[in-house]
């Protein structure tokens, strides 16, 4: 039996909040002016020589009082993003159209609200080591926290889960939602990713010697690691109606694979990445020549960029214009897939091939057509790569309706 084809879905609404902007207008303005969001790390007393892409407004964002138990940096960041570009209203309107039980919520994260637990461990009771009584594990730390919060906040009652595939998490949510809509379990889905700064990732990537001491330089000959960022990005996915605005953005294909190679190092030839790209193109029924722009995973570590370039050359060739927006936003980990899907959608609408910031001397050995400056161009089809620890790979094909 052949797989059931998944019909294209429309991104009926989308929004991004990261170190380069709160909401789409500010984000697009930063992309247009090539303004990056990285600065030396001063987060939560971390003594790690690196730069970060922080969302300063997230720290003070209040949650509505009735949702107090979910209060933590990760959910504040989610709440901040939910309030941009009319997303909350659009999701609630969709609930009215389809019924609240017919809308799924699938979000990706890598560390959820673990920052709250890190802080609680600094405040353990001297007598018995207990965590402070105001610590709420379920509301903050557990990986389901943000899905649970937004599902309630948006008044939804459909299927829901957090998708955890490290740095591929919030690309995979598009594939999960698409299958669930194709199986007629739901009619629409709120998908996205939320990940916020914490000591676990700062000290963790430091231990792996994967952090750049300055701002990251993806695909640069002298690249020396990644910069961690934080972000929240969401999209409302619905079946594409027969008549659509030509500028509407569609999810045309998804492709997933596993490296089966190593927990924290990509397959040296980018084999898993290659399979994911091929599956995404096949799912979208497109030749690689149809891709106008490739948003790279492009973390800036020597091994990632080398492996990814091999996969790109093997599938799309050397000419497709590509860049890593992580040079601007930092690597937003579990939020990166959704953030970069939304950045790609903004570029589709703006006719913009976005520069990869921070990269001065493109590594010629990688052999790809890496953009170091913005270029205007009519865009119709975009590919976005996301790869994560555990060997998780996911690629998305997005395109305009017209």
């Amino acid at each position, binding site marked *: *039996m052949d*797989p*059931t084809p998944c019909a294209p879905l429309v991104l009926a609404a989308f929004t991004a909040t990261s170190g380069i902007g709160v909401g789409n207008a500010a984000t697009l303005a930063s992309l247009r002016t090539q303004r990056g969001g990285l600065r030396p790390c001063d987060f939560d007393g971390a*003594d790690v020589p690196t730069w970060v892409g922080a969302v300063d407004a997230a720290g003070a964002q209040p949650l509505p009082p009735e949702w107090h138990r979910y209060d933590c940096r990760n959910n504040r960041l989610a709440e901040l993003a939910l309030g941009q570009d009319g997303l909350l209203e659009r999701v609630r309107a969709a609930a009215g159209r389809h019924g609240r*039980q017919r809308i799924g919520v699938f979000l990706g994260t*890598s*560390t959820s609200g673990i920052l709250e*637990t*890190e802080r609680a*461990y*600094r405040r*353990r009771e001297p007598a018995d*080591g*207990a*965590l402070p009584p105001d*610590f*709420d594990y*379920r509301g903050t730390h*557990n*990986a*389901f926290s943000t*899905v649970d919060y937004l599902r309630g906040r948006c008044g939804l*009652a459909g299927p*829901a*889960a*957090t*998708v*955890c*595939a*490290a740095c591929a998490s919030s690309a*995979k949510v598009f*594939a999960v939602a698409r*299958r*669930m809509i*194709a*199986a007629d*379990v739901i009619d629409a889905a709120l998908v996205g990713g939320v990940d916020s700064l914490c*000591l*676990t990732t700062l*000290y*963790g*990537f*430091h*231990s*792996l010697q994967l952090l750049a001491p300055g701002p990251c330089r993806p695909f640069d000959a002298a690249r020396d690691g990644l910069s961690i960022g934080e972000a929240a990005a969401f999209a409302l996915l619905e079946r594409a109606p027969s008549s659509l605005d030509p500028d509407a953005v569609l999810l045309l294909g998804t492709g*997933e*694979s*596993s*490296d*089966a*190679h*190593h*927990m*924290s190092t990509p397959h040296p030839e980018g*084999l898993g990445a290659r*399979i994911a790209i091929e599956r995404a193109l096949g799912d979208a029924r497109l030749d690689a020549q149809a891709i106008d722009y490739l948003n790279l995973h492009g973390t800036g570590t020597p091994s990632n960029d080398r492996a990814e370039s091999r996969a790109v050359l093997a599938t799309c060739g050397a000419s497709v214009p590509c860049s890593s927006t992580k040079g601007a936003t930092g690597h937003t980990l579990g939020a990166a897939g959704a953030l970069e899907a939304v950045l790609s959608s903004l570029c589709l609408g703006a006719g913009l091939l976005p520069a990869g910031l921070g990269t001065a001397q493109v590594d010629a050995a990688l052999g790809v057509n890496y953009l170091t400056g913005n270029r205007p161009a009519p865009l119709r089809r975009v590919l976005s790569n996301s790869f994560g*620890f*555990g*060997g*998780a790979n996911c690629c998305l094909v997005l395109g305009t309706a017209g």
Partner: protein
Amino acid sequence: MSLGAYVEGVGVLGPGLPDWREAARIFRDPGAYRPTASEVPAPSILPVAERRRTGRVVRLALAVALDAIRGAGIDPAQLPSVFASSGGDGANCHEICTALAEPPRELSPTRFTNSVHNLVAGYWSIAVGAMRPSQTLCAYDASFAAGLLEALVGVAIEREPVLLVGYDAPYPQPLHATRPIAAEFGVALVLAPRPTARSIARIDASIAAGEAQILDDAPLEALRRGAPAARSLPLLAALALGMPRVTTVEYLDSDGLRVQVSPCD
């Protein structure tokens, strides 16, 4: 909406339930269950370097996955997979938070690598050479049902067998007090779109308002409530009985995943 699949293999490991064969015997014999400690085997299928880095929860999950694969007789490298867990490796999480609580705040690379929620998916893919798509889901206490739903959707859309693995293990203190998971528990199902000579039962699932089925056996019911992955116990018991039956697995809010179990001859 109803999603159907054939159960080709089952794996289980928890207190007093050392594998599916023994568990099925216990489920068919009311009162036979004793919650004794079960041994979690070392994952001999992993290369030595990876094996050394695995904690108990990874070993638990790999053991139940292998138990299910044995019954299904399918090459695991060919199977897409779905993993479902509320908390990943909680012991590792405790070590990280302890190390970060005060200077020098040093983590080992292995500690950090094992902090990802999809660590079992990573180790499994390496162990069996599976390059197929894999999902890792969390839905707090509804994690098993969320995984079952995702696996059934995968079978329905991709029209090929899928491996589902649910696993949870207790946090050490002080996190245990805030998230009291009572026992290690792992469950695995191989689900297929078509029946084979090995099919145990056909299952048809739908989301429906309704309470989860409570087990008559008090120690088994305590286990069901004690670990999110053990919310699968009513389904496992129904599969073991070999009679047509409808059961409900805990899902979100007041919803359950209502599962009709129809044994195959």
